[in-house]
C-alpha cells in the first residue's frame, strides 16, 4: 500500500504539470495518496491487510449501530474513509503523544478529501492556486506519515 501511495502521489504531480485540464484528476490522486498512507499506518499498527482493515471498519460500524439502535448496519455502506482518517488521528496521537500533531495531520487529509469530492462529483473546476495547495499538503503527508510508521516500528522494538 505504501508503494501504491507513492504511485498515486507521483501521478498527482505529473497530472498537475500537464496543466489545468488535469487538475481535477490530480487532486483525486493526491487525496488517494494520503488515504493510502493512512491505511498503511493503520495496517502496520493493527497487523492487518487491506481486507482486514475494511473488516475492522465494518465491525466497528456494526458495533456502534447495535449500540445506538439495536440493529445491525448494512454491511459495506457508510464512509470507511472518514473512519480511517479518524483512526489515523488516534494512532498518530498515540505514537507522537501530541494532540496537535495528530490533529494537524488528520486535518490535512480531511482537506484533501473535501477537494477530492469537489473534483470528482461537482461541476466546479479545481484551479491553479488550489492544486498547488493540494500538492503541498499531499507532499507534507508523504513526508510525515512514513516517519510516524518508522517511529512506531522503532518503539515496538
Amino acid at each position, binding site marked *: 500500500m505504501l508503494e501504491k501511495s507513492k504511485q498515486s502521489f507521483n501521478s498527482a504531480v505529473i497530472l498537475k504539470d500537464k496543466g489545468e485540464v488535469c487538475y481535477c484528476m490530480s487532486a483525486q490522486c493526491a487525496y488517494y495518496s494520503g488515504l493510502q498512507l493512512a491505511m498503511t499506518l493503520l495496517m502496520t499498527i493493527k497487523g492487518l491487510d487491506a481486507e482486514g482493515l475494511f473488516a475492522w471498519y465494518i465491525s466497528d460500524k456494526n458495533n456502534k449501530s447495535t449500540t445506538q439502535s439495536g440493529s445491525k448496519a448494512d454491511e459495506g455502506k457508510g464512509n470507511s474513509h472518514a473512519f480511517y482518517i*479518524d483512526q489515523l488521528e488516534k494512532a498518530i496521537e498515540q505514537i507522537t503523544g501530541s494532540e496537535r500533531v495528530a*490533529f494537524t495531520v488528520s486535518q490535512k487529509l480531511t482537506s484533501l478529501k473535501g477537494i477530492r469530492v469537489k473534483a470528482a462529483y461537482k461541476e466546479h473546476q479545481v484551479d491553479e492556486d488550489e492544486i498547488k495547495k493540494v500538492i503541498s499538503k499531499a507532499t507534507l503527508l508523504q513526508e510525515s506519515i512514513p516517519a510516524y510508521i518508522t517511529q512506531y516500528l522503532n518503539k515496538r522494538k
Partner: protein
Amino acid sequence: MSNIQEIIKSHFENLYGVTVLYEYSSLYELHLLKLIPYNSILKDEVFKAIRAVIRECTRNNPDESWYLVEDDDMIKMTCPTFLYWKEEKVVSNHVYVDASYNGRYLPTPGVLIATDNFKNLMSPRKLAKTIDVIEKATLENYEYAFAA
C-alpha cells in the same frame, strides 16, 4: 443544526475574544468551522475546545467529516450559517447570532452584533462601512449597515 450550535456554545462559553463560524459545505461535503482570529488555535484552551466540538459531533455522526478552515485555505467557507462570538469586554451581552443565509444575513432581533471580526469575514461589497456595535439589532438597521 441547533445541536451543533449548542455543542459549540457549550465548549466556547468560557472563552472570550474568539469567533467561531460554522457552515455545512455541500461542495466539499464537509462540516466547516472557522476561527477568527485563526491563530487563536495556538491557545491550548481554544485548541481543546475545537477538538472537543469535532469529537462530539463525530461521535454523533461518525460518517461525517469536520474541517477547521485556515487563513488562505484551499477550502473556502462561503456562507456561514451561524457564528458564535463573545467579546472580552462585554461579558453580560452574550452574542449569539442565528443567521440564515438567503441572500443576506438575518440577525436575531435583540442581540448585540459585533463587529470588527465579523466584517473581516463579510464581503467588502456587502459591508462598506465599519460598524462597531449595533445594539438591539433589528432587521432594518442591519440592512442599513450592509447598505452603508
